[in-house]
């Protein structure tokens, strides 16, 4: 639908960069099409390295979905690594899409997936390296349309100034609706950007940020979000979901990279949503309701994907795989594949108490790595606050069983800085870890494996939009450091290894997770100061971020370290994720009184999702 442009020449650069295979674009199952005049060209951009982007299942789904349409050609774009970026900039060459090496300007759409807040500067970098004006208001008729989606688009305000279109919810259906509308308007010669944005905003789940203005109170909180369009409103700003996963599109092949990536295997997505309702977890809220794929469908998917990729390994993806209703049958099937076809099976950590003894032994046959547990908090009190329904007994029993079976490697994940957390809770982490250690020593020497390794990792709690903790303050940097040191000083045993993230990234992530539209300017400023790859500890620059906030006259503490009241209009409240605000308030109150909420299968807690959406093969 656009004039064809000269391809970007990179042959002379490839020998001067690390892992040139990142830029070839001809991997197994990559799409190759002849470019025609009436083809819609879509660049799927992942704002991180090739190795991370290629591990993302969502990209694989949308890539093949779009490419199965005759007159759409979807190509991939990743953030170039530093060496390639420097060479492209030095030689004045545009960033390109992998398949055809076309410059980004040759595309009708550039679609970004928002996987984590700290990737936002990479989005600006990709646009700039593609010679596309960063701010939406500066882009011309012939510039590509910038479309954003993914988990962070449930609060897209901090990046709204850069987007033409933001997609709320699951992308399989809505992406095609948007592209098809564009195609029709172009074909009938009715296309004009403003007209298109008008029309596309009528699709449920489409947010056109330039159609809305935000007003603020004197204290900086949001006063109102208003549509500036005639007949405009917020009624369409409701997330989209796939009602029936068995019927939903899923490719029978996926791209197979040449180089090693983070998840280099077939991944079966077994269900969406989560029954657990952990109060800190954004995924657990935004991906509601629970919808499962049938066992039959999964078996067929496994067969096709392995056949069409030649992959040597398969694993499962979901928020909590043990909760799949037919998990035992599914695992049996995977073990059969393992035995018959020499395919490695990498199983996620499963709650072993759900399984028979024989099943556990079967699982151990194929499990290669150690065990992972995520109690998230060190004390039962705090686990009740966050509604993580895992008891000390569960954990210790499972750990002991694992040690008895000869495992000597166990990983434990916790969060620090959770609401109501005290030093006692932090020391509770230490106590729990030492109890696990004691379980190991209680197994007779001849039965257990030597060389025990317990890895304890803490991440810092970041309150997220649309969770029961969305009103809570995040602890300050000083406090993060203090609590990390407190734990570090007590975890001194030689078998224990304690890892933690620098808190500086967490507080910036916190600001963007619950930020408003004014943060677009901070983001732009930080990018101009040189911030990039902020999710990478070695490249994150806290000083520059602080400078960016200061130069824009905004305070990080206002966004990250402030307690919000229920009456405050939150910057994301014009979006509807199907979970009622009253439910989130109720959950927050229950957290304060340390009351737990049962999982969705045991007892419906009335979050509202089943009234707002209909689904098949789910819980609701």
């Amino acid at each position, binding site marked *: 639908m656009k004039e064809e442009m000269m391809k970007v020449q990179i042959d002379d650069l490839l020998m001067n960069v690390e892992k040139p*295979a990142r830029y070839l674009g001809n991997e197994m199952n990559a799409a190759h099409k002849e470019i025609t005049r009436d083809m819609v060209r879509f660049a799927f951009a992942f704002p991180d390295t090739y190795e991370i982007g290629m591990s993302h299942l969502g990209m694989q789904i949308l890539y093949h979905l779009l490419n199965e349409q005759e007159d759409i050609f979807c190509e991939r774009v990743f953030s170039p690594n530093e060496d390639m970026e420097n060479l492209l900039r030095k030689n004045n060459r545009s960033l390109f899409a992998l398949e055809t090496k076309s410059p980004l300007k040759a595309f009708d759409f550039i679609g970004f997936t928002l996987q984590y807040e700290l990737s936002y500067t990479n989005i600006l970098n990709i646009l700039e390296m593609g010679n596309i004006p960063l701010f939406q208001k500066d882009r011309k008729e012939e510039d590509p349309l910038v479309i954003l989606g993914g988990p962070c688009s449930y609060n897209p305000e901090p990046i709204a100034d850069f987007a033409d279109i933001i997609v709320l919810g699951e992308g399989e259906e809505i992406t095609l609706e948007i592209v098809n509308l564009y195609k029709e308007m172009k074909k009938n010669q009715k296309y004009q950007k403003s007209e298109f944005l008008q029309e596309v905003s009528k699709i449920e789940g489409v947010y056109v940020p330039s159609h809305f203005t935000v007003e603020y109170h004197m204290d900086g909180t949001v006063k109102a979000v208003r549509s500036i369009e005639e007949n405009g409103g917020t009624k369409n700003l409701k997330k989209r979901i796939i009602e029936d996963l068995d019927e939903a599109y899923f490719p029978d092949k996926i791209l197979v990279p040449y180089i090693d990536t983070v998840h280099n295997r077939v991944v079966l997505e077994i269900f969406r949503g989560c029954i657990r309702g952990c109060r800190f977890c954004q995924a657990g809220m935004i991906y509601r309701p629970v919808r499962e794929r049938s066992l039959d469908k999964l078996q067929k998917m496994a067969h096709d994907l392995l056949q069409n990729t*030649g992959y040597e390994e398969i694993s499962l993806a979901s928020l909590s795989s043990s909760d799949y209703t037919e998990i035992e049958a599914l695992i049996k099937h995977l073990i059969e594949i393992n035995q018959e076809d020499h395919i490695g099976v990498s199983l996620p950590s499963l709650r072993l108490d759900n399984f028979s003894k024989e099943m556990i032994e079967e699982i151990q046959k*194929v499990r290669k790595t150690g065990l992972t547990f995520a109690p998230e908090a060190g004390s039962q009190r705090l686990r009740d606050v966050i509604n993580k329904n895992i008891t000390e007994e569960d954990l210790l029993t499972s750990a002991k069983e694992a040690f008895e079976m000869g495992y000597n490697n166990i990983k434990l994940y916790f969060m620090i800085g959770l609401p109501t957390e005290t030093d006692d809770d932090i020391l509770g982490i230490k106590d729990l870890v030492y109890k696990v250690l004691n379980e190991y020593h209680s197994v007779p020497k001849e039965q257990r494996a030597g060389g025990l390794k317990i890895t304890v990792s803490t991440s810092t709690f970041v309150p997220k939009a649309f969770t029961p903790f969305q009103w809570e303050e995040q602890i300050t940097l000083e406090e993060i450091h203090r609590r990390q040191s407190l734990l570090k000083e007590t975890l001194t045993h030689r078998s224990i290894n304690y890892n933690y993230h620098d808190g500086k990234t967490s507080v910036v992530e916190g600001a963007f997770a619950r930020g408003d539209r004014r943060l677009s300017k901070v983001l732009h400023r930080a990018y101009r100061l040189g911030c990039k790859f902020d999710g990478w500890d070695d490249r994150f620059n806290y000083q520059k971020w602080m400078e960016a906030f200061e130069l824009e006259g905004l305070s990080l503490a206002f966004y990250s370290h402030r307690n919000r009241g229920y009456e405050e209009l939150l910057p994301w409240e014009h979006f509807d994720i199907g979970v009622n605000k009253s439910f989130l308030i109720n959950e927050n109150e229950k957290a304060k009184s340390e009351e737990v909420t049962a999982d969705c299968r045991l007892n419906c807690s009335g979050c509202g999702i089943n009234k707002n959406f209909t689904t098949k093969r789910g819980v609701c």
Partner: protein
Amino acid sequence: MAILRGKFSKTGEMKYISHLDIVRLFHRVLRRAGINMSYSQGFNPHPIISFATALSLGVESQGEYFDLKLDEEIPFREFKEKVNEHMPRGIKIVEGKYIDSKQDSLMSMVEYSDYKIALDFSVEEMNERLVKEWIAGFLEQETIMITRKKKKKRRQRRQEYKEVDVKPLIKNFTVEKVEGRSVVFHTLLTTGSKGNLKPEDLIQLFEKYVQNQSASKELEQPLEIMSKRIKRNDLYHEVNGELKNLIDAVR
């Protein structure tokens, strides 16, 4: 049980795929092609396939080899067709032969690599006579020393280096063609367990030699290599004083 020795080419963009990634690519392609591979025992079974010698990133080749263990023999023509259908463009199985299971491994059989090297120099018109003189002079040196990293001993932190004379490893080094700034060389280098010289290292040594030569003659502009293209023609094993490629050597 059967062992197939295959020869393949690796050209075009495939030269950017590293040796390790080629191994993984073969596993996946063979599985997709439905080849009845034998697997190793244990928790983490993998196909039993071995390769002759690693090719540096950026080097093309007409002569790479693998030994693959199969559950049972299938006609090579069928194997070749099935596998090539699933190979990415740039990798092609060209020749094959079932070999005896007691046959020496590919890795131990490799003795020489044959390369074609095309270099573009910074001087617009290269003089063939001069290039030939340089080569003669380069090879007439008493020794051709190269600095190599020493293997680190256990717990050793600091990298140590050693000087090695690679002159005995250069079996042949000649000019094939001179055209403008570009010169095509042919070389035969010792490869494998008895000594190893990479063509990139040879080029670097030669460039240094030439620069020293021209510096003494006060050439107007310094002579530099602007770009290089290397292609491996084949891998050889010596049988009764004759060089044979790794399939012919077992005929």
